[in-house]
């Protein structure tokens, strides 16, 4: 799976949780999930669990803690698949 494909799927997942639809339209690898997309830390756990289901990977607590931006999520998935 290419980075672009992973990115597309990640954006799709984030879209379900984001409260800031404007930020979602201008999303990039640098977009902060908590600050820009207004997603709280509990929902961030839900998102990482969605990554696990979507990409059939397993993410541990420490790796999940490192996901702050869209790019962090994409890179994490690419290292696991």
């Amino acid at each position, binding site marked *: 799976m290419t980075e672009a494909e992973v990115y597309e799927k990640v954006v799709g997942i984030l879209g379900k949780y984001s409260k800031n639809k404007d930020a979602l339209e201008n999303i990039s690898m640098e977009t902060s999930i908590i600050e820009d997309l207004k997603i709280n830390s*509990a929902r961030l*756990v839900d998102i990482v669990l969605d990554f*696990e289901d979507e990409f059939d990977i397993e993410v541990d607590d420490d790796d999940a*803690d490192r996901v702050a931006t869209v790019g962090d999520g994409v890179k994490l998935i690419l290292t696991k698949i």
Partner: protein
Amino acid sequence: MELKFREKFSLKIQRLIGWATFPFWGTFLIALMRVVGGYKVQQMREIRKHFKELKRNADGPILVCSNHLTKIDSIILNWSLASIWAYMRSFKIFSWNLPKRSNFYQNYVLRLMCYLGSCVPIDRGGSREAVKKSLDKVTYLLSKGHTVTVFPEGGRSRTGRIDLDKSTYGVGRLVNKVKGCHVLCVYLRSHKQENYSEIPRRGSRFYLDMELIQPKSPHSGLRATRDIANQILEQLVLMEQAYFATAR
């Protein structure tokens, strides 16, 4: 999770100083709440007796998880659960807290009270390393059999009800990390409390309900964290419903 020797030692010293000075500041705080605040806890004797029994029957550390409506909830909780003498005999039941640093650490008096009152400040929304360090400290304390209080809603509820939207899953991680950890779910509310506030209104009478649970999950990792946090929050929601159905 491993803390440095210096960090463990400083927690031990903090606890020792807190215990040694507890009769003074504990009495002062209780007098302040009773006289200035006019606060009362309904059925305090029964609550303390019940807590003592729960503590005796629990074969592991206790994490107290409460709803959160005012900045002094943890003080009222500690006041409600045991007497000064019970705490002097076994200070391990006096709960450690994780107050938001920006709320309590701006002036020296509050900072001193927090130090004596077994607080481990947390920078909510701060760097992940700093938050992790605070959580590591309370994980260590729990694993050593200390009692710790956290607010799973992650802050004072703006709606006045258990706020599931703002809830955090950190509590699930704590329980998951500490073997045999029990969770004491507590619902605390003054009859005058409509919404969240800095402190309870003068003349408040507090209702307190508690339920000891041992949440478990068939999963591991993040899924277990979420499962456990949800079980705790669901219990708190049930207790809140019971409050509004009967106590008001």
